[in-house]
């Protein structure tokens, strides 16, 4: 320090000796130090100024390790010379100075030091130490000044930078806060939260807009104090709400509560409240900030659910069905009173036990497996169980197992709903017994029928052989007799012989018809579609030779196609048409209508109407009987088999036959055929 002071003194002394021109330049340089923007130019400026100091051949200013080569020979400026500064730090000196020893003797270095930093060096090469020497203290002082100025500048820069950073940080923080605030405000608005802020010291309660909505009061009607808030709380909830607040204030519990508020219109609303105390350094609460929100809807939903639950429970309690609910371990969690009565076992004994454990029914393992299966597959199950006899006979119950599902669809339980089906079971058994009996009877009847049919067949067979032979013989021998004795017989004898012959012939016809009728009842049926209109036309044509000379008006309307046995239906229609022709013989003209009744859905009804002699409805039932005739043979020939055959054929097709008529006013014969799906 003494050294510096001495130098400063010297400098002051030296001021007089220093060339004013140089001084001026350096003073300019001092100002420049604060004006020039960068170190390179500062260094350049100083080195130019210093090189004008008497005795100096060249000067270099090295700032922060920066060399300004404008004043030194560029070529010489490669390589560096390590130089020990006064303080012992090593500096790299441009190589232009590292020439020979003699040169070194002429090198002068002044460090630009402050207490904190070393900013560089002034490096001189002198040609005349004597000339230079007087400037030495001055240059030292200048170096100090430059260093201090640089230090000042550095500090200023540092300060500026810190300030900028700080400002940046504050700005950023402010923005963050703003955003946070916005988010919070959005959140509170979205959640419809009311925010309150209570200054405990001044007992001032500040609400946001939502708070007023939540309490149903206007801003101007709210006194803004704790007591005013408490006044809005439902009278029944005030005491505990106040207590909770006090406990929270004492730090005994967090402030987290629910209470009802009564609006001025007397409507009641449920609120939920959270709050946080701000305490001073002594832990005394000074402020409380919190939120309120409306939970009325949720409360109502919970209440509604509870009500629903109560309703279902009432339903289950009063159901005539037996109801048990099982948990996933097949343990009963609910048993309704009906079941309690049915089993005669108290609910308490059944709850918490599995069916196998309680063993109140037969085969409880099978029953429990059904429950487990519902849990496993999710498919509802069913089974019939037998309840042990409790003095009133064995009871059968039908149980349905139904899955209970949670919100996520997972099975949370199984309900077993049982119903006494004993009566149904008994009825079923009776029906089965009746069916068996019926089947047995049908089988018996069938075999009887089969036997009868066989007998009938044998009978028809022998009729066919044995009844016909005598007829042939009567006729044969009668003819032989006639050949031999015709001339010898008188008219009466001849008449007798003719009568015998006619009678034999008639009997032959009867036998043939009867056999045909019997065959009709026995033969196999081959059903196929039959176009009735075609069939009717064929039959009418067949009769044309017989009806020559008669005036007959045929009225044949559209006839359907039916399903049936062709040969049989042909025989039936032939019979009916032949009858119509026969009994209209005396009618001129003859009117015969063949048609189909309209709009019959389950059956097709065909009718044949004629304007013939008709019949007395009293005997309508006899018409279709075998050998039943309403006319004498000498009036209308016939065997009495025809309509019986028709009925037989239609019966075998599953249809019906009937007739309407009036004496001398014609007759209508009807037959029906069932309509089947196959029908075209």
């Amino acid at each position: 320090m003494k050294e510096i002071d001495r130098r400063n003194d010297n400098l002051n002394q030296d001021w007089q000796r220093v060339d004013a021109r140089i001084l001026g330049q350096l003073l300019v340089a001092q100002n420049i130090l604060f004006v020039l923007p960068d170190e390179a130019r500062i260094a350049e400026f100083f080195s130019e100024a210093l090189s004008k100091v008497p005795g100096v051949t060249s000067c270099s200013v090295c700032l922060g390790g920066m060399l300004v080569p404008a004043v030194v020979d560029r070529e010489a400026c490669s390589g560096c010379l390590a130089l020990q500064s006064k303080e012992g730090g090593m500096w790299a000196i441009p190589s232009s100075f590292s020439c020979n020893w003699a040169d070194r003797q002429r090198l002068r270095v002044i460090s630009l030091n402050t207490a904190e930093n070393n900013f560089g060096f002034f490096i001189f090469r002198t040609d005349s130490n004597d000339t230079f020497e007087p400037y030495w203290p001055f240059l030292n002082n200048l170096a100090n000044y430059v260093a201090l100025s640089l230090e000042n500048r550095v500090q200023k820069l540092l300060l500026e930078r810190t300030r900028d950073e700080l400002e940046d940080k504050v700005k950023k923080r402010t923005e963050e806060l703003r955003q946070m605030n916005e988010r919070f405000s959005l959140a509170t608005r979205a959640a419809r939260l009311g925010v309150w802020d209570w200054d405990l010291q001044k007992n001032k309660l500040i609400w946001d807009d939502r708070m007023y909505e939540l309490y149903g009061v206007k801003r101007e009607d709210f006194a803004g104090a704790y007591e005013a808030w408490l006044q809005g709380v439902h009278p029944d909830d005030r005491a505990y709400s106040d207590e909770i607040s006090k406990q929270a204030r004492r730090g005994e519990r967090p402030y987290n509560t629910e209470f009802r508020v009564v609006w001025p219109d007397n409507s009641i609303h449920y609120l939920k409240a959270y709050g946080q105390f701000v305490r001073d350094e002594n832990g005394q609460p000074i402020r409380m900030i919190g939120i309120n929100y409306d939970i009325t809807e949720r409360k109502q939903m919970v209440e509604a659910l509870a009500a629903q639950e109560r309703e279902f429970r009432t339903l289950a309690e009063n159901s005539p069905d037996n109801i048990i609910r099982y948990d996933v371990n097949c343990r009963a969690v609910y048993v309704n009173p009906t079941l309690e009565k049915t089993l005669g076992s108290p609910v308490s004994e059944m709850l918490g036990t599995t069916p196998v454990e309680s063993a109140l029914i037969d085969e409880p393992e099978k029953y429990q497996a059904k429950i487990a299966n519902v849990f496993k597959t999710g498919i509802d199950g069913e089974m019939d169980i037998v309840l042990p006899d409790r003095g009133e006979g064995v009871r059968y119950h039908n149980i349905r197992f139904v899955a209970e599902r949670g919100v996520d669809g997972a099975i949370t339980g199984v309900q077993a709903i049982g119903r006494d089906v004993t009566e149904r079971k008994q009825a079923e058994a009776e029906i089965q017994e009746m069916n068996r009996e019926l089947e047995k009877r049908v089988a018996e009847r069938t075999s009887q029928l089969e036997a009868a049919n066989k007998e009938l067949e044998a009978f028809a067979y022998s009729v066919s052989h044995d009844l016909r032979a005598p007829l042939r013989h009567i006729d044969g021998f009668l003819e032989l007799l006639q050949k031999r004795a015709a001339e010898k017989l008188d008219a009466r004898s001849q008449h007798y012989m003719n009568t015998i012959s006619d009678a034999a012939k008639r009997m032959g016809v009867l036998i043939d018809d009867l056999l045909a009728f019997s065959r009709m009842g026995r033969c196999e049926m081959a059903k196929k579609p039959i176009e009735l209109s075609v069939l009717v036309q064929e039959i009418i044509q067949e009769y044309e030779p017989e009806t020559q000379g008669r005036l007959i008006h045929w009225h044949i309307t559209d006839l359907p196609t039916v399903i049936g046995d062709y040969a049989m239906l042909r025989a039936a229609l032939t019979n009916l048409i032949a009858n119509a022709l026969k009994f209209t013989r005396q009618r001129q003209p003859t009117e015969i209508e063949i048609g189909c009744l309209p709009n019959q859905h389950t059956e097709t009804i065909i009718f044949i109407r004629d304007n013939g002699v008709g019949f007395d409805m009293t005997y309508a039932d006899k018409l279709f009987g075998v050998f039943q005739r309403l006319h004498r043979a000498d009036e209308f020939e016939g065997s009495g088999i025809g309509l019986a055959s028709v009925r037989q054929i239609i019966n075998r097709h599953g249809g019906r036959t009937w007739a309407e008529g009036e004496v001398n006013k014609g007759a209508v014969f009807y037959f029906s055929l069932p309509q089947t799906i196959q029908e075209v």
Partner: protein
Amino acid sequence: MEPSKSILLVEDDLNDIELTLTALGEYNLVNEVVVVRDGVEALDYLYRRGKFEQRSSEYPIVILLDLKMPKLDGVQVLQQVKADQQLRLIPIVVLTSSRESRDLEECYQLGVNAYVVKPVRLAEFIEAIRQIGVFWMLINEPPNIV
């Protein structure tokens, strides 16, 4: 040697035998009509046993067979004859009162050569018998049965 041209008539009913023989007689078609009264006799005749042991070895040129007979009926006779390697060659005409389809089918299944239902009217019956006689005696070439 000229074959004897005999007819075997198997028939139980005397009236029918009479009518048949009358009809056959009208045309003098055959040398001989052998009448047997039931199925057993018919087979005895064909196999030359019992009372027919001594008959000539000639076989009838045709058998007229009734169906409904006591003991062995016509169908059974037909069955046995047609089952015999030798006898099956003899033509058999079933002559019956019935046209039961059951009989018809059975006889043809067994290999009957003709099936005739006896007409009720005598004239027709005589005509039928005549035609049978003409056909089997004169038109048809009989097999050689050794």
